[in-house]
């Protein structure tokens, strides 16, 4: 664990990614402390104004402070990213491991489910599910999770299949270890690496998808401050002020960039085979 951390720190992009990620998480957690205004506080007189002393990054069309809204947007992004990724990871891994151990019909059914979910482009699937479930924070978390389950499932299954045949597992069975014990203590630790890497690489995708859905108006609705919703508001008033778009877009991009860099350096640090030789 420790040397993984060291390897990440040593590469410049990894260091940047780690710092950015921490920054985003801290902003998300500490948003109420760091914000200068209430995110929904109106200041209609100062609507669509550029950055000033009163409003560090300007205001949106209702006079709400962009800096503060942006910070609260971080909260949403981190919350959604965490909720979606962890749920998809757990469900997907469970299904994947089951598929690897289960009899053929069950395995085929699970794989078919994965294939069907991935036969939809992710946004289209999300939109279809939104059409059915309706918008809102909870629904978004649910449906974005569904979109990402197959990836985790396939990786988990592939990894389990590789690990399943290893001699030490046979030894454990010979010693009388039960199936669940084997799965928990021996299979899981060995497959967790690529799954964690996948999770970290998926976080920016989740954030982008959620922001996209909110942008379209079917995701997280105002007054909750989602970067996507802020972006849409900004787009509507683009000719009057570019600042809402810049703030929302900029924060979104920086967060995504940070998580991407972090995820990649994590991947490079964990799997030496994937590391590119200089």
């Amino acid at each position, binding site marked *: 664990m420790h040397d993984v951390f060291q390897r990440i720190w040593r590469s410049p*992009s990894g260091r940047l990614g780690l710092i950015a990620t921490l920054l985003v998480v801290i902003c998300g957690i500490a948003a109420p402390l760091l914000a200068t205004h209430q995110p929904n506080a109106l200041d209609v007189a100062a609507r669509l104004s550029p950055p000033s002393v009163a409003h560090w990054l300007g205001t949106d069309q209702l006079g709400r402070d962009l800096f503060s809204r942006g910070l609260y947007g971080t909260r949403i992004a981190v919350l959604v990213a965490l909720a979606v990724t962890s749920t998809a990871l757990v469900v997907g891994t469970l299904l994947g491991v089951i598929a690897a151990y289960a009899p053929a019909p069950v395995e085929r059914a699970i*794989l*078919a489910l*994965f*294939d*069907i979910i991935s*036969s*939809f*482009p*992710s*946004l*289209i699937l999300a*939109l*279809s*599910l*939104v*059409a*059915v479930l*309706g918008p809102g924070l909870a629904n978004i978390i649910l449906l974005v999770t569904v979109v990402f389950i197959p990836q985790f499932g*396939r990786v988990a*299954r*592939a990894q389990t*299949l*590789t690990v399943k045949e290893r001699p030490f597992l046979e030894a454990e069975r010979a010693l009388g270890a039960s199936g669940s014990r084997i799965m928990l203590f021996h299979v899981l630790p060995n497959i967790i690496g690529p799954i964690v890497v996948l999770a970290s690489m998926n976080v*920016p995708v989740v954030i*982008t998808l959620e*922001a*996209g859905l909110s*942008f*379209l*108006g*079917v995701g997280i609705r105002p007054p909750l401050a989602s970067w996507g919703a802020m*972006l849409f508001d*900004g*787009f509507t008033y*683009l*000719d009057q002020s*570019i600042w809402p*778009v810049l703030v929302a*877009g900029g924060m*979104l*991009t920086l967060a*995504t*960039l940070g998580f*991407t*860099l972090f995820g*990649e350096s994590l991947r490079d640090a964990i799997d030496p085979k994937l590391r*590119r*030789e*200089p």
Partner: protein
Amino acid sequence: MNDIWSQGSLVRYGAVRLAFAALVLVGSITLLCCLTLIVRGDPATILLGPRATPDAVALFRQQMGLDLPIYERVFVFFANALQGDLGTDVISGRPVAGLVLAALPNTMMLAVSAIALAMLIGIPIGCYAAVRPGSVADQVLAVLSVSLVATPSYVVAILLLYFFSVRLGWFPVLGAGDAGDPLDQLHHLVLPTIALAVGWIGYIARLVRSSLLEVLGEPFIRTARAYGQPERRVVMKYALKLACIPTVAILGVGIGELMGGAVFVEIIFNRPGLGSLVFKAIGDRNYPVVQGSILVIVFIFVVANLLVDFLYAWLDPRIRENIGRARGGGA
């Protein structure tokens, strides 16, 4: 190689993949139909409004087939779809198939140009970076490509719109252009295509760079060099073909993501197309249009993936042996 069904034959590989894809398609649409079951509230009253009479509601339900059991609905839907009937638009009364077919070319034009642009720029950049690893150019490229990948397409689209249309006025702000004038259409196509392609340029460049670097370290490249192959041929012919395989592999997924991105771009640039059609229909709770257009989108996606699989097998003869495995689907 004489028998068309012999091992390693491209045809056999294609046939199996086709069958598999058809199954997946059927499954997806079934899922979709099932979803409309769990819609909250009664679609009929939602669409017709609270003042609809019970008779009108009953008639509507009968027309929509909402009173049939689920498996019959799916069957009817498919039976109709195969005949080209995708249902009727609830709001305008027009056939869905017509709406979709009108919107489709715009979206395809956009998607195809975006992929073409992304590959046209991304592959050479990736090659260049791989042949000069560690150089200044390589490092600049690395930073740039990550940034491009991280920026969502809708952010890029809005920024492009702002700077080049609103501010500079170089490109039109909305629409797809005059249907009869290809040059005008091209003019309208530029910014949306760039917006969609930008992220992919970065992604493809990095993918090509890392796969090319990996391939260049392989023993058979050393063999080629050992026989005096000029370096250019070694890289461009022997290494590149193999290095492009991962890029081709992600093309299938890429097309899907691109169609999703097209939704944003079409809305931002106010272009007609499948994306804006679906989106508007969802907002209107216009289920027939939603179902019909999503069927077409998924169909295109599945077909595109199939073509990509085919291309993949054509490029890498080793794959032709592994017939049952979907790319990325199995162990």
